[in-house]
């Protein structure tokens, strides 16, 4: 290296370069959904559907051989982002355990990293804890509310209210439920959006991460749940509350961005 080259190197170190903006967060917001999920969702969905079909055929075969046991899946309900199946036979109950909610963060940070604007139910006030799971295309937001007089504790979560939000349009079958015959499954329309109220007997619930097949260890017992399409989002409210209270909380999320005119 010549003197001049050394001096140039030194000059570079002493220069007042324009400050580098923090690009990691805006870039992260733009790269959701993850390439793996974006590139191959159809294949994974299909392989999962085939696996599920195979399982059901197998189960059907087994059940058919047992007197009094009929088809496994009695009914099927679908929203964009969530499915609910009614079965006459459920897998063995998993032990109750806390929901897997991702990394703890703040609402402000969640706003930066999620592929949607987080909705906070005004009827429940600001959440006690905020979590983001970035492994889901568009990200998944979880808002936790401690139990209170208005929001009694749900045994399934140990919380008064758990709100999950994710992009249903990017994750068409992400939230999946299996319910037995004692569980009420009521599809209805809430202010023009499709919704399902699942209550009564506890049911099983799992998120199927993109690219992952169903795993029984992900099963979780859920209490009363309102599933709601909200614009591009799928919102899931879980608690020990009744349907009217769930609807009140859901309405306080505000109108979906597409309908916000007034």
């Amino acid at each position, binding site marked *: 290296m010549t003197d001049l*080259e050394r001096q140039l190197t030194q000059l*570079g170190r002493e220069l007042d370069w324009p400050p580098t903006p923090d690009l990691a967060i805006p870039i992260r917001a733009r790269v959701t959904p993850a390439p793996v999920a974006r590139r191959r969702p159809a294949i994974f969905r299909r392989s999962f559907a085939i696996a599920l079909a195979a399982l059901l055929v197998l189960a059907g075969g087994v059940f058919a051989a047992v007197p009094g046991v009929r088809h496994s899946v009695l009914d099927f309900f679908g929203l964009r982002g969530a499915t609910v199946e009614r079965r006459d036979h459920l897998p063995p109950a998993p032990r109750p355990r806390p929901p897997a909610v991702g990394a703890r963060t703040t609402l402000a940070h969640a706003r930066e990293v999620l592929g949607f604007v987080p909705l906070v139910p005004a009827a429940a006030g600001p959440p006690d804890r905020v979590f983001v799971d970035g492994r889901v295309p568009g990200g998944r937001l979880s808002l936790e509310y401690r139990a209170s007089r208005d929001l009694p504790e749900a045994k399934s979560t140990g919380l008064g209210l758990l709100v999950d939000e994710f992009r249903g349009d990017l994750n068409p079958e992400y939230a999946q439920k299996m319910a037995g015959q004692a569980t009420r499954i009521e599809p209805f329309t809430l202010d023009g959006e499709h919704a399902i109220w699942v209550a009564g007997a506890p049911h099983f619930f799992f998120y199927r991460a993109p690219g992952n097949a169903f795993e029984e260890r992900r099963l979780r017992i859920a209490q009363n749940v309102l599933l709601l399409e909200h614009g591009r989002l799928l919102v899931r409210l879980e608690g020990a509350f009744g349907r009217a209270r769930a609807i009140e909380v859901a309405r306080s999320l505000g109108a979906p961005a597409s309908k916000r005119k007034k």
Partner: protein
Amino acid sequence: MEDRPPHEAELLARAKRGELDAYEEIVRLHQTIAFRTAWVITRSSADAEEATQDAFVKAHAALPRFRDGAPFRPWVLAIVANEARNRVRSAGRRAGLALRVAEERRPDDAVPSPEAALLDSERREQLLAAIERLPDGAREAIACRYLLELSEEETAAALDCPRGTVKSRLSRALERLRAELGEEVQA
């Protein structure tokens, strides 16, 4: 947060599997050099920011094609420089290099190599002025290789030319610079 940053190869493997945390970490590791490279080409902070963002987004989309074990920095710098050049072409004009020496930061921020004494202020102004007078291509080569301390491979990626060409372009650029400085060619 106190953990040591995982090795880049591991981060890349995780990012390839779709982990956004890992990609965010990769961006943080390289954003400064990427932004400065873009700035050397565009000479505008706004354009450099946009170019760097777009480049990292494109790089993420191209990750499945990124060869395992290959160095990430030259690869992403090539994408950054390309984005930056596209902006220069569309902007159609360039400001001067307009770099200044960070006087107030020098005592704790500058990390002088032991063999190189700090430059005196007169020499710095002289060098900067001479760099300003260089043609665009020569100035970019000098800025990438010496001011930003990119490797030859990275400089080649940023200048979008073969590595062999970098050597000859640099040697011509240094000659021009010496001429601008009114100095004889040194051995």
